[in-house]
């Protein structure tokens, strides 16, 4: 019985949490969700590829108004992880334009989403400022 479960299947937990992509064997295109065929070259063979855990914040927004139940404000962004674009929140930072900047270096981190009735903890990921 596992004690932890990742928020999404492309997050691998363990000693060094990281993201894994389905990489098209033919062209190298990477996808986080399940694919029937490659959107780029239509190939149907995929392999697992580890995504770099450090990257650069290429775009962000500070969401102040969201759907009911979504805590605001939060920083949503796109991180360029050595050539693989990752969608994530930027966490462990003040959600203000003064503290978040385009081009800032960030690194993957994880946090708890809570524990279910069977004692399993769901673990999510975000990116935090890196030195």
């Amino acid at each position, binding site marked *: 019985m596992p004690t932890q*479960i990742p928020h999404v299947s492309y997050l691998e937990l363990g000693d060094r949490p990281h993201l894994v992509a389905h990489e098209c064997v033919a062209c190298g295109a990477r996808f986080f969700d399940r694919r029937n065929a490659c959107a780029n070259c239509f190939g149907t063979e995929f392999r697992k590829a580890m995504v770099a855990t450090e990257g650069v914040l290429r775009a962000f927004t500070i969401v*102040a108004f969201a*759907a009911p139940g979504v805590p605001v404000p939060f920083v949503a962004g796109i991180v360029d992880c050595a050539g693989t*674009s*990752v969608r994530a929140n930027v966490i462990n930072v003040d959600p203000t*334009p003064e503290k978040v900047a385009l081009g800032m270096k960030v690194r993957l981190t994880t946090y708890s989403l809570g524990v*279910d009735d069977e004692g399993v903890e769901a673990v999510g990921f975000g990116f935090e400022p890196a030195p």
Partner: protein
Amino acid sequence: MASDDIWILGIAMTKFGKHSDKDIVDLGAEAVMAALTDAGISMREIGVLAAGNLMGGGGFGQMLQKQVGQTGIPVYNVTNACATGATALRTAIMAVRAGEVKFGLAVGAEKLAGAGLLGGGGSAKKDGNKWEPKGRFGSVAPTDGRIGTDTMPGTFAQVGMEYGHKYGGVSFELFARISEKNHAHSVLNPMAAYQKRFTLDEIMNDMMISYPNTRPMCSANCDGAAAAVVCSGETLKSLSPEQQRRAIKVTASVLTTDPYQEACQVLPDVNTLTRNAAKIAYEQAGVAPSDLDLVELHDCFATAELVHYDNLMLCPEGSAADFFDSGATWRTGSTPVNVSGGLQSKGHPIAATGIANVWEICHHLRNEAGSRQIVGAKVGLAHVIGLGSACGVHILERSGR
């Protein structure tokens, strides 16, 4: 006029805004009947109806026929996100171009007043549940708000910020000044949902929705409809001199989707498909961006307008901020953009937008735009983009008669 040219014979839009006493069929019927009157023909002559509505329950075209004329013609109910109206128009154009019908009718109608935030959501996990992976991402909980944002203001905010990261020169204030321009333009447009000029301070200090987009920098959800009648040059030759004089030539009609790009799975790519559509459209029309007398582009958010200056090649690549700073896109500038007030003030009743922006261009090309007329306008471009994605570009020219 060449026989295989495509012409807009009649076109109309309802006032955009809150129409609490009308449903989508009322709005669609109003636009259709006005477009037919404008065209000088009746439902009897129409050979095909392309009917756009996104947020209703489906079957809009047939519901509309019951109110404007059940003639037994084929109906194509189309939805294509925010490009729904342009898709309906393009569908009618394709039918005419294929020679299947003499007259095609396209309509888009939407009821969106008070709709609030679009995109985002997903129900929160209830107590007592077990974490269970679901969907293509195998997620055990909603991802919106935890892994980025699904909201439209947030998505398009990132689109603008990404442009800034790539080319520099953008700021909260720059985006707010784009919004200032469109709201200033709207004062001259009686069809706009909002005709209020804002100061830059008012825009920047209004409610923040998703940085850097404040509320006035977001498209206005509202009700409205627009409709157009199209025919071929061959058909137009058989019509009256007055119909020929007011007809507007469609020199390009293009619809694209987003081709694969590395990052498109994490942030919708609204750039490549717009650039592709623009390239094809300029080639079809035989015009250059510098020939455009006015442009109505999809400013669903202030952050989006900036990137489309570049995508539509109104400026050299990477220089959209400088282009805006030069004053080029104000109605007094070299390439007036969104003289209607744009989606931020005219409003964005989704399915109507892609025909209403064509109406705006036609209005100027016919020299019928009153106080907001762009004097001497001969060529204009209308652009819409729907996330998912779909992009429609139409280039229009006055007949010169």
